[in-house]
């Protein structure tokens, strides 16, 4: 299952992670986010420890969204060694998201 990232655990789970981390910025009232949700879950299920996948609720963590320049949802960011290396905006096919982790 996709992890839940928030302002408290973001540093330890995302920035300090030794494996790449896919972060899905979303909100409950955003219909496209709800459509992308199951795809994010699938990617999480298939990770087998090679990477982490988690979600940031922008309603509850507006600071995280603004720190990383998230201005549209859904936005998916991939972090490597504490830095954003990939960004994808909107509902995109699963393959396209998996490519961000390569």
């Amino acid at each position: 299952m996709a992890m839940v990232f928030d302002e408290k655990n973001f540093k330890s789970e995302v920035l300090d992670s030794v494996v790449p981390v896919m972060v899905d910025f979303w909100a409950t009232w955003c219909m496209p986010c709800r459509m992308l949700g199951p795809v994010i879950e699938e990617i999480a299920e298939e990770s087998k420890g090679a990477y982490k996948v988690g979600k940031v609720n922008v309603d509850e963590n507006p600071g995280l969204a603004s720190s990383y320049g998230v201005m549209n949802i859904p936005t998916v960011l991939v972090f490597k060694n504490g830095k954003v290396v990939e960004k994808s905006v909107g509902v995109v096919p699963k393959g396209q998201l998996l490519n961000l982790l390569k």
Partner: protein
Amino acid sequence: MEKLIIAGAGPAGISAALYAVRSGITPLIIHKGIGALEKAAKIENYYGLPDPVSGQELYENGLKQIKALGVPVVEDEMLSVEYDGDYTIHTITSTYQTKSLILATGTKRNTLALKEARRYEGSGISYCAICDGFFYRQKDVAVIGNGEYALHEAKVLEPMAAKVTILTNGMEPTFEKEALGTIQVETRKIISAGGEPTLKWLELENHEKFPLDGLFVALGTAGSTDIARKLGLMIENNHIMIETDTSTALPGLFAAGDCTGGLLQVSKAVYEGALAGTKAVKYLKKLPEAV
């Protein structure tokens, strides 16, 4: 609650309605007048027309044909669609609820003609006020467009943003000006966009800078692609991605005709419409409260 609403009355929408009514479900058609057919002086590449007819004539014949079968047709403009198990369609004059929806309103010819558009997608340009308005609380935003759709998006933003301006980009506003409230209107043409790292200004035709934090795109009318994007369907090259049977990722939602891309031809629209009408009826008949 309607069983089936078909948005669009071109070849795809009318074919969908024909197949639905023949299968026992009378749909409601909502449309906003003639679409791409208006520009077709002669339809010459369609089966069985030795004497070509005009697009206008074909469109009128389609409407006549479907009305003769008792299918209700409403002329209105779709503004937004919500999904919560059923579909709620907001138009300029009314609200409809339906179990199943076929999007067949064609493809929009007007896209955002700003060379910096792609660069600012995700960093200041948005296609969904209801999704992204949240990020612009107490900020200055603009909506580009000149119709009721632009006004609708501006109204979504009005309670959140510090200032909302509708930019008509040189076009005449066609929305109800009485409904503007605190929303402002700027009619000058937009030449370019800039700002680092996010969108911060637009350059107007007299080289005056228009400062803003976010630009929402709502050109023309809310087309099938706009509606689909906000429902979270996948869009590629401004077309709705559908399965081969015209179904989408949302249950009961189908799309047909030009809005799904491929050949922008009457033949393809008719085929997809027929399929969508048939599949929608099949979907409805499988529902627990089978119709």
